[in-house]
């Protein structure tokens, strides 16, 4: 009989420390294996149900250990859960808000299913906004500890991966499908020429090469900026989360103000970078917000750390 959990054990062995593996993951796998052996005498449904429940539990355990949540206190875990819940709720709210402008221009002939095509262009902007304000509201009346910061930054990395996949592949395809649907309802048939937002990475790269070879530096710069900004925007969640943690205050109102300031600065710098695309390299323009806010976060964190060391040294 095949014993479940071996692959999960190998995965957990790579991402968890030996102590966690022995004390937390292996008991979960051993219990699943025992339960599965007992369920083997029953029907196929019982076996599958046992496997699904067991695998989900072990995955949860492994993820908690990998993100350091298992080492966190109950207060930390509550702060992490609260921050993630706020992030999801605010991201959904920002998606709905960002979908309003295109929804205003469509008429009643468009179905609700059609409007779903607008979601991919809102998601990459809504995720960093949702996470930034999620941190501000989720850390109510507390200074984030190391375990909380590690867990939330791991979530920010996951959010960045989702943003990157959306910006790179889902958004271009959804945008083009949406434009063609709009064109069809207006009686225009055939495929529409793609704009920068509808192009994939390879298509943007090709347009940059074509524009550069024909001597059109402005168009080449514009396409190059569109290419690089997708990478920069995808990592905005990490940069903004880092900025919020660096400037962490216990006061909820000032944290919300810092979140507002960080988001506003990011988008303002994004436009400044786009405007400078012809003057400075397109990559530098696209990464300008990340560079400025990232550097500010590092400076603030370093300054706080040295102040804390100074006050500890000065203590009698």
């Amino acid at each position, binding site marked *: *009989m095949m*014993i479940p*959990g071996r692959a999960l*054990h190998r995965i957990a062995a790579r991402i968890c420390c030996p102590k*966690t593996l022995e*004390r*937390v*993951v*292996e*008991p*979960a*796998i*051993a*219990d699943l*294996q*025992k*339960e599965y*052996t007992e369920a083997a005498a029953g029907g196929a449904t019982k076996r599958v149900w046992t496997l699904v*429940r*067991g695998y*989900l*539990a072990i*995955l*949860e*355990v492994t993820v*908690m*250990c990998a993100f350091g*949540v*298992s*080492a966190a206190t*109950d207060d930390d875990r509550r702060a992490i859960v609260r921050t993630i819940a706020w992030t999801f709720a605010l991201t959904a709210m920002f998606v709905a808000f960002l979908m309003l402008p295109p929804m205003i221009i469509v008429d009643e002939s468009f179905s609700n299913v059609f409007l779903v095509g607008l979601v991919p262009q809102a998601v990459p902007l809504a995720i960093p906004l949702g996470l930034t304000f999620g941190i501000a509201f989720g850390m109510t009346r507390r200074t984030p500890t190391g375990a909380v910061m590690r867990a939330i930054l791991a979530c920010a990395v996951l959010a960045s991966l989702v943003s990157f996949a959306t910006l790179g592949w889902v958004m271009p395809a959804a945008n083009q499908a949406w434009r063609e649907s709009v064109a069809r309802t207006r009686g225009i048939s055939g495929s529409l020429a793609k704009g920068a937002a509808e192009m994939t990475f390879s298509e943007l790269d090709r347009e940059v090469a074509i524009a550069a070879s024909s001597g059109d530096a402005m168009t080449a710069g514009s396409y190059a900026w569109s290419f690089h900004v997708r990478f920069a925007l995808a990592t905005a969640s990490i940069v903004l989360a880092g900025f919020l943690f660096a400037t962490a205050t216990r006061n909820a109102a000032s944290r919300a103000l810092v979140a507002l300031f960080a988001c506003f600065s990011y988008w303002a710098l994004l436009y400044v970078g786009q405007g400078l695309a012809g003057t400075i390299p397109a990559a530098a323009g696209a990464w300008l917000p990340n560079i400025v806010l990232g550097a500010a976060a590092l400076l603030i964190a370093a300054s706080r750390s040295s102040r804390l060391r100074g006050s500890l040294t000065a203590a009698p």
Partner: protein
Amino acid sequence: MDIPKLSRTERLILELLSGEEMFGLQLVEHSNGALKRGTVYVTLGRMQDKGYVESWTEKPQPGAIGLPRRLYKPTGYGLRVLAAWEAAARALAGPPKLRPA
């Protein structure tokens, strides 16, 4: 002096283990839904770090396949912490009774 902390989940685990030693899955089954499969092992690991419970793997049965299961029982310290928290809960239960003037 630091007073040992005992969360609601840790208290429930100590209460369940005070009767008999159990496996993680048994604790989930005996808790009537209060303990979740995904978190009970993490909580047990943390309780071991705090010294509230101790654990060991069962002796492998002849012909058994798979990993050996881990059994848990409370330590003397864990039981003392539980008793102290229960005493504190009893002492603080209900509003104070005021005597008529």
